[in-house]
């Protein structure tokens, strides 16, 4: 048996190292290491609770708005405060814009460039894919970055700036929209839609969103002429390389539900493992048996603690291992769409579970569904009506904020004592997906997804990269 250490992984957010035990040309076991620790949960302790709004976005520069939203929601629940409809819509729009930008960044800048690597030089599609998607030099990056920058104009208007806005407040948002600004928001979304329809999909968003099974997706792919759709180009590569056979994890998918009013979100919460189950956040706990952290038993995050123990034997990461009722679950766009019941996502998972193909397709399916939804939210904004409600925070309180970030469920658990933050625990999406083993030895989703993978030189070596990046990891969030 040979032990291979892979890192640094670039084109992921933050620093990541993976150790593979290889035998007979395949991975026998994988250990995922998040090698950086900053201690945000520690540095929040003792602060004025509202300071969390300034501090937690800085956990992560790629999903800072999601962190804001989770903090705002945790504070709102501690204050018993509900945002007016405008505030909710504006906050959803800001969050959706961040997710849409993330999906775009992932596809064009992080994921696709691996197919332009020399390992694939003999494939018939290589020249076209290299010209289009090669890192830095490919023609797609400039177009995608321009579309992304234009989309983020929505942030400038609704949130002041991105990343690290303070516009998301417990009671709504700090930036009301005037009638002419509502039109500007619509025009921004229209420009983004035009890019997606012309370049990414080569088709109307509604037609992509209406694809209802793998056969329909294949037929759609075959109907797109070469060069007319970047998504179809990916699907052809995926078909040729059999990407649906790689990167399967535990096939239990969790979503905390996303967008819209509490109780009736646009994307419903739940757990899906072939059947749909309700989500019980009380059954979440975090195990630190293999993390460089001191603790004795798994704890619910409301009782969670974070104490570094860098010399702990048997530990190999700073990441805790969150489990749902003891189970390993996968989170992300695919999980969201599967739980919410989209027929294409359900069919892809029925055929091959979570894998490199279904995760990427899930992300692009979500993007096609999200933008028309955002257009509806803008239309529903009512200038002149309030955007932010007022409230007071009790000196003794606790609150929970569960939101879906681009990469999956994000939870903040807040406890206030004597008017100060006593406890603050964060479980980020990549904490779920890149968790280490738990006390029972169960590997986390990526560890499982890498197990059995053929590795070697050339195409086999780059497979590891596809599997890792299919999750779109965000390492700075993971251990914060």
């Amino acid at each position, binding site marked *: 048996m040979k032990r291979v250490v892979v890192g640094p992984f*670039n084109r992921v957010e*933050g620093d990541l190292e993976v150790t593979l035990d290889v035998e007979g040309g395949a991975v026998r076991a994988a250990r995922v290491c998040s090698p950086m620790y900053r201690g945000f949960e520690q540095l929040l302790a003792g602060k004025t609770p509202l300071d969390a709004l300034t501090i937690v976005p800085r956990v992560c520069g790629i999903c*800072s708005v999601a962190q804001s939203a989770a903090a705002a929601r945790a504070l709102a629940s501690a204050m018993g405060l509900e945002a007016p409809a405008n505030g909710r819509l504006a906050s959803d729009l800001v969050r959706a814009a961040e997710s849409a930008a993330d999906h775009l960044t992932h596809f064009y800048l992080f994921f696709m460039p691996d197919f332009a690597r020399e390992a694939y030089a003999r494939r018939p599609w290589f020249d076209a894919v290299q010209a289009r998607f090669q890192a830095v030099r490919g023609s797609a990056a400039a177009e995608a970055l321009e579309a992304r920058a234009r989309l*983020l104009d929505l942030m400038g208007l609704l949130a002041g*700036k991105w990343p690290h806005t*303070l516009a998301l407040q417990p009671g709504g948002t700090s930036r009301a929209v005037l009638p002419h600004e509502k039109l500007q928001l619509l025009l921004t979304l229209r420009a983004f839609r035009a890019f997606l329809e012309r370049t990414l999909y080569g088709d109307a968003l509604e037609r992509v969103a209406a694809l209802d099974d793998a056969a329909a997706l294949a037929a759609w792919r075959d109907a797109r002429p070469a060069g007319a759709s970047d998504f179809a180009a990916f699907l052809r590569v995926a078909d040729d390389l059999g990407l649906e056979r790689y990167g399967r994890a535990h096939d239990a998918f969790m979503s905390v539900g996303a967008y819209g009013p509490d109780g009736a979100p646009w994307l419903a919460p739940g757990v899906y493992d072939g059947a749909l189950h309700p989500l019980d956040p009380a059954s979440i706990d975090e195990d630190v048996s293999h993390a460089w952290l001191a603790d004795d038993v798994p704890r619910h995050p409301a009782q969670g603690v974070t104490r570094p123990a860098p010399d702990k034997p048997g530990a190999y990461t700073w990441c805790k291992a969150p489990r749902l009722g003891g189970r390993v679950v996968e989170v992300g766009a695919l999980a969201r769409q599967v739980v919410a019941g989209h027929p294409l996502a359900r069919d892809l998972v029925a055929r091959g579970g979570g894998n490199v193909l279904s995760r990427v397709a899930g992300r692009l399916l979500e993007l096609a569904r999200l933008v028309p939804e955002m257009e509806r939210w803008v239309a529903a904004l009512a200038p002149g009506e309030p*955007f932010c409600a007022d409230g007071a925070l009790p000196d003794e309180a606790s609150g929970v904020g569960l939101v879906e970030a681009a990469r999956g469920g994000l939870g903040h658990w807040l406890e206030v004592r004597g008017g100060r933050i006593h406890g603050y625990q964060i479980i980020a999406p990549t904490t779920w997906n890149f968790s280490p083993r738990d006390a029972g030895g169960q590997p986390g989703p990526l560890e499982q997804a890498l197990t059995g993978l053929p590795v070697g030189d050339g195409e086999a070596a780059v497979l590891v990269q596809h599997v890792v990046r299919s999750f779109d990891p965000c390492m700075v969030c993971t251990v914060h």
Partner: protein
Amino acid sequence: MPGDSSAGGRLNVLWLQSGGCGGCSMSLLGSKAGDLHRTLAGAGVELLWHPSLSEASGAEALEVWRACADGRTRLDVLCLEGAVLRGPAGTGRFHLAAGTGEPMMAWVRRLAARARQVVAVGTCAAFGGMSSGGGNPADACGLQYEGDAPGGLLGAEWRAPDGLPVVNVAGCPPHPDWMVETLVALGMGALGPADLDRLGRPRAYADQLVHHGCPRNEYYEFKASAHRPSDLGCLMENMGCKATQAHADCNTRLWNGSGSCLRGGFACIDCTAPGFEEPGHPFAATPKVAGIPIALPIDMPKAWFVALAALSKSATPRRVRENAVADHPLVPPGIRTAGRK
């Protein structure tokens, strides 16, 4: 290979990340300077490796680092994004550079010794930033500062071969233009010691105050103040706004099209300054003594401020007074009915 020392005429840039959130890179990607890659290439900037953008991963990436560290590839600019993490107990093990087993702190020290310039991207790399807040659990510091105290990883005396200290493109995050313009200026050989302020920040943006160009200036003039998030009034008196003390051009060089913190309805927290992460008061509240904010506009004598504020408050027009505590203008400016004279 790209960046070979025989290439000549190019600015070889290696970009590393440590104790930060990646937000500086994410902000950079929002650049409106057309095609970011072509803009940088046009200024002679060759990104040897950037964690979010480059193709090379794993062993190939490490080979780029090593070639720079042992002088086989000329390293013109080392950019560090995120703070240096020195903990636990000075070992740097809170950030072991993936695939190397070595603290990132050691890599940064080694590469900085080879680099012709060192650029701290963002307030974490410059001064420690948010990563050094609270009790500073990871023992974070900046490249050449620890808060506002010179020192940091490289030491107060460190200078590049041409005499420049670490260039501190401070901001949490920095505006994309601040990063692009600094790299372009370095590529053109157009950034000298006189172009940096006392804290090593490029004066191109740091010689302005966030207050300049603030759309709430009329509210400021009359001290017509916001009381709640989403109010239109001046954010200085109650909401913790430090725009009158903060060095940056955020309100004349807008963010993401039309934005700035104040345009977004929230206070400037002076994120380009050392120590912004620990203001000594809640971020969104203004500390006061006898009703007067303790931190007054820079360059302004307190007595004058107090006198002028009292006078202007008493002269506040109804329009300004009422709109200050609304989330959209309730009273439009009047229209003169008398004939012109």
